[in-house]
């Protein structure tokens, strides 16, 4: 029982990181209606920015986090303007999906050239001596608590932002009907840029937290957590922010428990099998809305 709880905590820790990444995924999907496959790589860029600021330039971790958020925000806006906007009216949503993959290759290879393939060890934002908290028989990683707290705060803030502020309401309107929103005088371009800015800033946070918990940083660090977070976002119902949070946490727990109790070699297969079963029972994910089709 004791070790079961330890596994559960590890799962929540991993899951909370997936959750933060998934929130960024799902936000962009909700408004721009595109699967931003480059999101994982924006996370990697964020982690490299933080690494450069904290380790290379020797600044405090907070500055690194802010630099990472700003850098990612800028990057997100640029990607949207240069690579995605020209294809917004392309007639097929697949075109922009493929461009996103191109952007993903581009970011990975750019990082490969700038930072080389030799992995870097990320300095955790949690100091060495405060890395774990002893609670009775359990050791809890401080970073897990931070991740869970950050993801909850982010979900709440985003919900507040979307429901209580004018730009948030504009985002909601755009996600429901872009044409009608623009007729109401909402700047669709501006709203989409804002969404990318927020989503990418969150990728910056995710990058710092991801690498604080799992310190190996290489140009391909973002791609696998990115795809897992994508799965988590769908799991929870893509487009739904609380869904992404729940999907991420569940995915992390299932992954760890499958590795421990069933087979460590087959854990990926098990995670994906659970996803398939969930989607067959609830075809729009756990918290997804069912959209009525009209002829």
């Amino acid at each position: 029982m004791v070790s079961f709880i330890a596994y559960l905590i590890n799962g929540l820790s991993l899951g909370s990181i997936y959750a933060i990444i998934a929130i960024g995924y799902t936000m962009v999907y909700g408004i721009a209606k595109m699967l931003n496959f480059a999101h994982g790589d924006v996370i990697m860029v964020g982690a490299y920015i933080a690494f450069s600021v904290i380790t290379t330039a020797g600044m405090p971790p907070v500055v690194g986090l802010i630099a990472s958020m700003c850098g990612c925000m800028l990057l997100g806006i640029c990607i949207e303007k240069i690579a995605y906007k020209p294809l917004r009216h392309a007639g097929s949503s697949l075109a922009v999906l493929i461009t996103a993959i191109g952007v993903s290759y581009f970011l990975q290879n750019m990082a490969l050239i700038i930072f080389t393939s030799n992995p870097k060890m990320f300095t955790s934002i949690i100091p060495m001596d405060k890395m774990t908290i002893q609670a009775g028989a359990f050791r809890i990683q401080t970073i897990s608590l931070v991740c869970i707290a950050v993801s909850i705060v982010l979900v709440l803030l985003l919900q507040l932002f979307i429901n209580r502020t004018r730009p948030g309401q504009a985002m909601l309107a755009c996600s429901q009907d872009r044409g009608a929103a623009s007729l109401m005088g909402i700047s669709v371009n501006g709203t989409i840029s804002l969404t990318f800015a927020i989503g990418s800033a969150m990728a910056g946070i995710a990058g710092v937290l991801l690498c604080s918990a799992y310190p190996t940083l290489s140009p391909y660090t973002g791609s696998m957590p990115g795809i897992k977070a994508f799965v988590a976002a769908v799991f929870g119902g893509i487009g739904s922010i609380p869904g992404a949070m729940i999907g991420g946490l569940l995915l992390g727990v299932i992954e760890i428990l499958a590795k421990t109790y069933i087979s460590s070699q087959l854990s990926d297969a098990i995670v994906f099998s659970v996803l398939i079963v969930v989607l067959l029972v609830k075809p729009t994910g756990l918290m997804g809305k069912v959209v009525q089709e009209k002829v």
Partner: protein
Amino acid sequence: MKKMKQFVSLMLTSAMAAGMMSASVFAADAFYIGASGPLTGPAANYGTAVVNAAQIAVDEINEAGGINGYQIEYKGEDDELDSEKSVNAYNALKDWGMQILLGPTTTGCAIAVAEKTKADNMFQLTPSGSGEDVTKNDNVFRVCFSDPSQGMRSAQYIGEHQLATKVGSIYDSSDAYSAGIEASFEAAAPDYGIDVAVKCAFTADSNTDFSSQLQQCADAGVELIFLPIYYTQAGTILTQARMMGLDVKFFGCDGLDGMLDMDNFEKSLAEGVMLLTPFAADADDDLTKNFVAKYQEAYGMTPNQFAADAYDGVYAIKAALEKAEATPDMEISDLCEALKTAITEIEIAGLTGEKIVWTADGEPNKDPKAVVIQDGAYVSMQ
């Protein structure tokens, strides 16, 4: 509009195909040595190390007057860690004029290319393709130890030095190198009184988090964790073990070398980690010092065992060419026949062994060194 686009695409395709039609310009005034390995993709640091280190060795040799009075022409190609791309890289090198292949870097690619070198009868020396099947053909030799021999030697070392009796292993089940060593380690363990209590796998798709594997080892109460993996993941494993307060020994193979030289690696994490590796970047013999200094100067990082294997590989080719008194105007096939015999007759002092000799079945014979990390540096164990 559709037609226009198709016309343009067709022109583009034909132009690209035409670019690949020109026959290679072949000049027999130098030895053409080609290397290949993953230069992009998640395994890029391994291939880059091989291609860079071989470049250093080639430059040194050329500066010192070449081989048998001939200079070396050298080129490295990217295989993206993929069998098919490795064959493409091999063919591209062949068009460039390659006579001797130093590569590929990894097992799967080395096996795929070995069939091609067999057909062309080209001499192939893989620096680090450690899988058992790599050297099946008689024109293929390797610089590193084979996987079964590494697993067996690790079990032997742990058993004979009584490091532990209850052992857990964490390995990458989706990687040929890691799974190969693990299997032979497990097979050999009972002979040395070692009980492999738990073996936990991870895959390339789930190599972010290792808490579950470490927890399983902790639950089983193992004294030592065997890590037949590459150093990329080792940093995370050691950090997480520290966070969990795990008090065990770690034992790894040559793949772990390079760990200390990752940017910003917290060296205290690796305190007491043991590894069986033929190369240690901070060994204090002149050869290693010279190589490490040159590598750092040229590429801004410390070389790992892949680099060392490639460096030795170039010198092995040199020694064999000199032994065979070969000249660049020989046919590729004749060169291969001459080298096949010559390499079994040479003995070189390299980075990965003071005395390396080769047997006709392609395996090197050299002493593995066991090192332990103390105060952030390798210290020889014996």
